[in-house]
């Protein structure tokens, strides 16, 4: 039966600038300066090689479970729009963006090898540490953005999360608060098609994730997440809008988790190798390399050069990490940052542990002597 249609200016658009073969849609060329283009390229290569290296270290048992980022390096294009004094609120698959922002690879290695020290935040402390509870982080970005608005800065907050995160209630609450208070925040969903074993199609019934922005009358855009130019441009528009006091934006980056969910995961249980093959053709780095080569910014030799540079950076980070880890850890540190000041119960417990460790040392020394 006929009903009156409410007119709502609904548009969800899709942005792609560099196609899978590195061909540029020149009408959409953001005209980024050469040095930025090269820095973006190097950032992605570094992320890729570091990721590959961590996988080796994990298989050697030198680090523990971690979340590979292979295939999702173009996320850097979004983070690259942030100024040093803007805020980054990551989840757990944003190592590329965090390192781009200045987090040391040493601390990434420390984090994944079981050292709380890996959580130390970069100088200035405007990057939140890695945080595992899915969907819970966007609210923090919204709250930070409230502060930025309240303090009349023109800074912004950007937060990253996955397609699975959009099913959590906190995601909904974050977008609602951000839109009600019109705070300067950019929500970046890395839709990598999988939440561990759950495909995007079973995560939510909607055709796109971007359209969820419509529930809040918030600008929403779907972007080719393997096209760093599109990611950069989309994020730029969102960040500019936020800085101009025009409120939050929601971006869905269409990308793919080429590797494991974590090193504890076995994707063969739930997805076909053909699918992965298909997506490997859309690799964000090869595509961008092709474009930069045709643009004359990259040559065989230059590519080699960059590869060597990042490999040596990774090597020195690894060395710093080894030296640090050889020092070992003081278990008593587990009490240090529990509170601003240790309350009596923790002072007692710390002393208990100190005595226990002492007694243990004595015992093992004795056993050693016995053996001699």
């Amino acid at each position: 039966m006929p009903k009156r249609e409410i007119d709502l200016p609904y548009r969800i658009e899709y942005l792609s600038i560099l196609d899978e073969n590195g061909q540029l849609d020149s009408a959409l060329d953001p005209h980024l300066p050469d040095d930025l283009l090269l820095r973006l390229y190097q950032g992605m290569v570094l992320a890729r090689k570091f990721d590959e290296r961590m996988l080796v270290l994990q298989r050697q048992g030198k680090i523990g479970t971690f979340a590979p980022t292979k295939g999702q390096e173009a996320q850097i294009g979004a983070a690259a729009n942030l100024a040093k004094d803007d805020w980054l609120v990551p989840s757990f698959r944003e190592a590329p963006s965090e390192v781009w922002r200045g987090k040391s690879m040493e601390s990434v290695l420390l984090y994944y090898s079981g050292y709380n020290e890996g959580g130390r935040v970069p100088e200035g402390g405007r990057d939140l540490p890695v945080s595992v509870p899915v969907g819970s982080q966007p609210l923090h970005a919204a709250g930070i953005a409230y502060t930025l608005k309240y303090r009349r800065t023109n800074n912004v907050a950007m937060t990253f999360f996955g397609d699975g995160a959009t099913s959590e209630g906190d995601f909904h609450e974050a977008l609602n608060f951000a839109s009600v208070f019109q705070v300067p925040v950019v929500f970046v969903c890395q839709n990598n098609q999988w939440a561990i074993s759950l495909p995007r199609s079973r995560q939510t019934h909607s055709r796109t994730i971007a359209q969820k922005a419509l529930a809040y009358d918030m600008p929403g855009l779907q972007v080719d997440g393997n096209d760093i130019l599109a990611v950069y441009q989309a994020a730029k528009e969102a960040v500019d809008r936020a800085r101009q006091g025009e409120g939050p934006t929601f971006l869905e980056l269409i990308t793919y988790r080429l590797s494991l969910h974590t090193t504890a995961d076995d994707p063969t249980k739930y997805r076909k190798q053909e699918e992965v093959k298909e997506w490997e053709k859309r690799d964000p780095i090869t595509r961008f390399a092709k474009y930069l080569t045709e643009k004359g910014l990259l040559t065989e030799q230059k590519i080699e050069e960059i590869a060597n540079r990042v490999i040596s950076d990774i090597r020195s980070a690894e060395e710093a990490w080894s030296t640090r880890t050889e020092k070992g850890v003081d278990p008593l540190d587990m009490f240090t940052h529990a509170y601003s000041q240790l309350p009596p119960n923790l002072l007692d417990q710390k002393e208990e542990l100190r005595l226990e460790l002492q007694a243990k040392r004595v015992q093992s020394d004795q056993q050693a002597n016995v053996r001699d």
Partner: protein
Amino acid sequence: MPKMNMVQAINMALRQEMEKDDSVVVLGEDVGVDGGVFRVTDGLIAQFGPERVIDTPLAESAIAGFSIGMAVSGLRPVCEMQFSGFSYFAFHQMEAHAARMRGRSLGGLSVPMVLRAPYGGGVRALEHHSESREIYWAHTPGLKMVIPSTPRTARALLLSAIRDPDPVVFYEPKALYRAFREEVPEEEETFPIGTSRIALEGKDITMISYGASLRPTLEAATELREKDGIECEIIDLLTISPLDDTLFTESIRKTGHAIVVHEAPRSFGAGAEIVTRIVEKSFLFMEAPVRRVTGFDVVIPYYQREQEYLPGVFRIVAAVRETLKF
């Protein structure tokens, strides 16, 4: 000194601190234009405006998570859960982030927020408006859990909570909101979080309590003095976690007898921790088992039966007599 009830005292603490420090903001459901369903934030929006006294959409997890974001970026949010019974919607945010941000960032970031919530029974309310579940917060490392018992302690502790560098969960005994008035100094007064106080001196038995239960405990002490000549010493915990066991330790070493009084369900409640601290620190001074005078291990019933659920004067008096008879 002006005499005021607990609602006025908390309102004063908020107002004075907001006047002093523009990083202090208040947010929650109906805290602005309405002034809060208990009028605790009454008048604040008129004085400080909607940017600092924020009426939020109806979402507790967001109120907490948003506050965490505000706090890591330099504000001192005081957020309200309209009733403690709905604060569990925000539990994961407090456990996963408010409690952990300092440790996770090795002290690089902190979450100086206060989560306020009216708690407890005795006001003839609907379901979910009367429980006392402070343990959920007290057992969570990284949080502090405070429960005042009078207008003056409420005002002083809230001031300390707002200034505390760590997240503080602040339960307000709603049964005491307007139950009585007390002199509260106009000039600033704080009270150190993590310290209990002696509410009544005595020599025969130690009564350990907090929040709304302090009143019946005091009344019971009066009755016991008048009818039995028993002199009770009452320790008002004020902070549940981190727990200050110094005063009740001293006290029981003097009296040799003790009871614990709280509204919360008995099993796995605060009483268990207190009894255990006494065993750990004063075993040889214990002349009798320490009794728990508490609510029962059921959901607090609707108001026709809630008075029989709550630990009242009669139950407390009986427990003291039993303990001294032991």
